[in-house]
């Protein structure tokens, strides 16, 4: 799976490549996906086969690692509906496939989940789960838990109602579906639901924390990462921002958007829920990764869940109860002054709230947050969480005339810009126990790639200029770097090849929300394009061009 394990540590025990010899890494082979859009997928390996999934049109390639140059064994083309491209909010990305039960599972932009025979690429089943006609797309990597494939939708921008559903891994038949908004029966909230905080208890809060019926177009799409704890049989995943109403048109907490659910993997029944950003006003999707750790906490071993959240806080939750043990700012934050540990509530700063007819300046973090979808890695050796993230703030105002489907309207005009220090990206090594940054690497652009940590004390990540970097897990010293053909927004993975040696793989190809200026050919003069991201990325076109190439490295 892209996250390496159910705990989502992205930590590999392989250590042939280590801090001493990583400087000697060389290209072993490359492969073009043939699609020059944002490459967010993780290359996966099983046996002597590597699986690479392209952005829309979501072509899956199987490469034969036992042969020189790793030629393709087969490819599978799902031919998604072209109209899906017009529905995708932020580039036509896909976050990768997942391997289980001798099958490879993945989602297509037009809302299908597909299972292939991992050996020969033969389609075993294909289930339509999303409807692009109402604005639903799917970009997330599924997770397989026992005999179920878990899939969630994207499309909060179109007012879709978020859901996560479980499909039978062998037949593709829907087993359960849990909405993020609406009455308890739709959200799969029943007698087992025991949220930690008082405010999350009560009947049908998924409707009562909204104006009548607004929850029907409430957002809360589940387009991010899912973790799983086999001991408790609970899955954990986040929900997207509420939408598409103005925040002042949806008073209330807008449950269960911009939050997290713990659910029974077999039945989907919710065990607890918590909102990172109740009544979100900044587009802070709560869909980031959650790393499951067992750690010492004030003299006791606690089963925790670590979440570097959009709002700039790093949360440690008791994953059995949903209690927030700590929440510490890991990035520049001025829109939230703190998280009240008694109530679990963030304290929004009034002067940074968006207002009609007024420019609100220097809101930190910006709408994409201190960290977006791109996942962190955790090393048990160092006890550090390696967080690739952004350092961005924004100015917001409602003024720009726009139109859609024949209807003129007034849009929110957002302009993203570098946060304090001027660097737009950061990689932090975060000491989870001490709740502080140990070292920090400043990057020119937001770091939009995932991280990978290994037992060789090396941490890998990529930059939007196209550098693939190996840094020392303890000191942060850059040990090696290689310039790929395009900016990197993918997820590095490592594996032991059929020859017994360790390899490191990354897809290069800039795009995504942050890189849409390049992958979508946006005009750098359109400061508010890509929902404001272009303002912060105007110079990226001078640094890199579109791409779609797999790079695999090994020692000589």
């Amino acid at each position: 799976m892209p996250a390496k394990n159910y705990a989502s540590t992205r930590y590999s025990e392989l250590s042939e490549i280590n801090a001493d010899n990583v400087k000697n890494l060389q290209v072993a082979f490359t492969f073009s996906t043939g699609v020059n859009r944002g490459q967010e997928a993780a290359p996966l390996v099983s046996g002597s086969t590597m699986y690479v999934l392209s952005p829309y049109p979501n072509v899956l390639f199987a490469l034969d690692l036992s042969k020189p140059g790793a030629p393709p064994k087969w490819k599978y083309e799902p031919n998604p509906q072209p109209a899906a491209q017009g529905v995708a909010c932020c580039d036509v990305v896909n976050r990768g496939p997942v391997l289980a039960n001798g099958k490879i599972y993945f989602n297509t932009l037009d809302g299908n989940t597909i299972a292939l025979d991992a050996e020969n690429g033969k389609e075993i089943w294909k289930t339509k789960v999303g409807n692009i006609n109402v604005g639903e797309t799917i970009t997330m990597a599924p997770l397989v838990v026992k005999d179920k494939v878990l899939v969630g939708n994207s499309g909060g921008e179109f007012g879709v109602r978020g859901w996560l559903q479980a499909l039978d891994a062998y037949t593709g038949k829907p087993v359960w579906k849990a909405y993020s908004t609406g009455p308890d029966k739709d959200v799969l909230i029943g007698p087992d639901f025991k949220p930690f905080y008082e405010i999350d208890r009560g009947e049908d809060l998924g409707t009562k924390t909204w104006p009548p019926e607004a929850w029907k177009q409430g957002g809360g799409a589940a387009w991010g990462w899912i973790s799983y704890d086999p001991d408790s049989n609970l899955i954990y995943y986040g929900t997207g921002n509420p939408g598409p109403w103005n925040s002042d048109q949806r008073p209330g907490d807008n449950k269960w958007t911009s939050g997290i659910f713990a659910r029974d993997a077999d039945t989907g029944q919710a065990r607890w829920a918590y909102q990172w950003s109740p009544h979100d006003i900044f587009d802070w999707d709560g869909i980031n990764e959650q790393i499951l750790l067992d750690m010492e906490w004030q003299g006791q071993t606690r089963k925790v869940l670590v979440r570097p959240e959009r709002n700039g806080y790093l949360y440690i939750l008791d994953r059995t109860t949903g209690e927030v043990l700590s929440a510490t700012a890991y990035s520049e934050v001025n829109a939230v002054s703190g998280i009240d540990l008694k109530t679990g509530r963030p304290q929004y700063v009034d002067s940074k709230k968006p207002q009609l007819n007024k420019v609100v300046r220097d809101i930190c973090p910006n709408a994409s947050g201190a960290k977006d979808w791109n996942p962190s890695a955790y090393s048990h050796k160092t006890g550090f969480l390696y967080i690739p993230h952004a350092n961005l703030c924004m100015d917001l105002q409602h003024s720009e005339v726009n139109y859609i489907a024949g209807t003129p309207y007034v849009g929110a005009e957002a302009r993203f810009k570098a946060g304090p220090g001027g660097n737009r990206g950061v990689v932090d090594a975060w000491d989870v126990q001490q709740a502080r940054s140990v070292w920090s690497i400043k990057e020119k652009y937001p770091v939009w790639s995932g991280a990978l940590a290994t037992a060789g004390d090396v941490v890998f990540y990529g930059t939007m200029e196209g550098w693939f970097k190996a840094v020392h897990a303890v000191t942060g010293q850059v040990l090696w770097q290689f310039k790929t053909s395009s900016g990197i927004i993918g997820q590095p993975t490592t594996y032991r090849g059929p020859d017994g040696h360790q390899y490191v793989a990354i897809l290069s190809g800039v795009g995504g929300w942050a890189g849409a200026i390049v992958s979508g050919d946006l005009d750098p003069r359109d400061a508010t394009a890509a929902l404001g991201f272009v303002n912060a990325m105007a110079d990226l076109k001078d640094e890199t061009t579109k791409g779609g190439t797999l790079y695999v490295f090994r020692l000589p």
Partner: protein
Amino acid sequence: MCSAFPKSMLLAGALLAMAVHAQARDLRICADPNNLPFSNQAGEGFENKIVALLAKELKAEVHYTWWAQRRGFIRNTLKAGLCDVVPGMPANLEMLRTTAPYYRSTYVFVTRAGEPQPTSLNDDLLRRATVGVQMIGDDGSNTPPAHALAERNIVENVRGYSVYGDYRETSPPARIIEAVANHEIDIAIAWGPLAGYFGRRQSTPLLLRPVTPQFDGPKLPMVFDISMGVRREDTALRAELDDALEQRRPEIEAILAEFGVPRVAKNSTHAGALP
């Protein structure tokens, strides 16, 4: 005969070349294939009809690229070079160069005939009745009436209708108008051309009234000038379109009237009752 033959051939050849040249001019349009009253693939929308007029004026042949109007429409169509003109754009839209406006319309209150009609956004009726607004879906973006209601803290009785709707249905944005006729809501606050066209097609008689004030504060216009859009650099094409729009003004007016597009006089300070 021997000498005449090549001569006439030459002439025929020249005529043929002229004919080819005259027909070679394409007016390449990007439009939504399923969005009446604006456009559809059958060419039944008022924008289709106006485009046909302009093509006649420019002696060009219309070629459509059909593309659902979603976020990225301009980028994926006009800016990607699939076409040269997109009709129905708000004047001075930042990402385009736009022609002189060919009409000005307004958001309207849509009510059932014989039932109370709001006199303005400040009418208390809007607090009591169930009010539908169009939803844009873009984060933080909403129609001016939706913003205006929120500003007045009119929340609980407001319902949303997506401008996208379910694209499998015909003309998905029409649902908000049907909702008034069906008694699902009491009042819709919808963009004029949509209300004008679908308002007439309901079995329940509906009334339209322009939303006032025309500007609800400096940032919330209820009226918009509508133009044709071209790429920023295509100034020559824009000039031609401006001329053609001017030449065909009476016919364009007739089309807009036929489709029931509520129009507001350019210099009116407040919109009066609609014809």
